[in-house]
């Protein structure tokens, strides 16, 4: 087991445990922090896949900006364990069971998909994850979506301000 494998399994375990803890934490602030841990784990996976740019963008955008917003909101609303609304236990069980069924069905689906067997993801080689290549592709082939997404951002910003000002 090389260092890549070790890191892979470590990050996978971290991601899954943290993701579960997002659900299981009673306190929303802990949920946010666990979710940040998930994002870190996923960023780690990106680094393993040599998608450096995405790794760091994931960190800046998700962990650095989006989750800060979540924290802001939660802290300003003063949400904590006591005020956390809880679902009735049967609903929780139903949700968990149906989710588990979905996972099982999906996994069986993937297991029997012949296209996916024997394929591997290239780990640390390959330069497509580097910022130079991504930038070239982004500003040549994907420049229109890029501009449109900037417009989307602007409108989202305006929307957020308008909603928030009411």
């Amino acid at each position, binding site marked *: 087991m090389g260092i890549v494998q070790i890191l892979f399994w470590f990050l996978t375990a971290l991601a899954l445990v943290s993701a579960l803890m997002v659900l299981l934490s009673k306190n929303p602030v802990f949920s946010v922090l666990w979710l940040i841990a998930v994002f870190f784990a996923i960023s780690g996976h990106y680094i393993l896949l040599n998608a450096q740019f995405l790794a760091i963008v994931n960190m800046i955008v998700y962990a*650095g900006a989006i989750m800060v917003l979540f924290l802001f909101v939660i802290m300003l609303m003063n949400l904590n364990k006591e005020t956390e609304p809880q679902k009735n236990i049967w609903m929780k069980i139903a949700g968990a069971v149906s989710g588990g069924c979905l996972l099982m069905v999906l996994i069986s689906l993937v297991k029997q998909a012949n296209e996916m067997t024997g394929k591997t993801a290239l780990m640390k080689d390959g330069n497509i994850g580097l*910022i130079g290549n991504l930038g070239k592709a982004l500003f040549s082939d994907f420049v229109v979506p890029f501009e449109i997404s900037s417009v989307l951002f602007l409108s989202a910003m305006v929307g957020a301000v308008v909603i928030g000002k009411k």
Partner: protein
Amino acid sequence: MTLLALDWFLLIEKLVLIAVIIFASLGIALYTTFAERKVAAILQDRPGPNRAGSFGLLQPLADGLKLITKEEIIPNSANKALFILGPGLAMTAALMTCAVVPWGNKVEMFGRSIALQIADINIGILYVFGVVSMGVYGVMIGGWASNNKFSLMAALRGASQAISYELAMGLSLIALLMLTGSLSLRKIVEQQMMDGHFWNIAYQPLGFLIFFICAMAECNRTPFDLPEAENELNFGYHQEYSSMKLGFYLFSEYINMFISSTIMATMFFGGYDVPFFNEAAHADLGNWLAVIGIVSLLFKVIIFIFVFMWIRWTIPRFRYDQLMNLGWKKMIPLALANMVITGAVILWLQK
């Protein structure tokens, strides 16, 4: 990422490097606290601390000792885990930044060529931003976990300040990155060292100014020290902290200052480049070249730290609305304008 290859010598080398850099950072931060007091005294026509050791040089140790031996108080209603996590996060985030800074040229040692940089990654400066954005969590978590309204307010104040100024900071750097065409800090330094190239400050004075101001805000230095305004705003996010946890917060701030000075020196002032000295022509100096480089970098850093302090002891703090106005209405448009102008000039020169 060479880090992941199972090259044990490399691993040891990097570990040693990490240890050295971390301890150096801590030491420098330690003495920055001392310098702060000394500079304040000098600017105010006072001698400053001079009791512990000659010229008070042992003062930081005494301070540290005092912080460590003080009683640790964790408020009853505080969230214990997060209360401890907060300063730890702040410290970690502060220290993690040094990973991508090139401290000097390569040194030849034990038959290996060792780069004085923990990791020369493709996305160097982005990494710095990523880590800096993590720094917000230390403040927020600490402020929230204290379970104190004033701490929470200060934490939110600090977080929104950090986020606001991070934007302008990034934008101001984009203009510079257009010039360099690379995100790797080492590449940026090497470009500045080349013949016929001036330091980037010559090309990007406005960008540097914006970056400098934003760095000051990121470090919560006066005039942007709203998050920790002691008497005026009922202390800051660390109001409930005492002892070493408070020390961590204060320390992380000084480390931040040190690191941001380093980044500024690297990005705009040639890093370990010695002015008017052609390194390439003096290859015979061997490892001493690296030492000269490190000294040069540290010298620049010290000047920056001094400027930080100088400003702190000159300027009163902004009001919060002024701070936000400055960030959003002045800095960001300026940075954008700088970006557009730089882009236009680059295009014009390239035809």
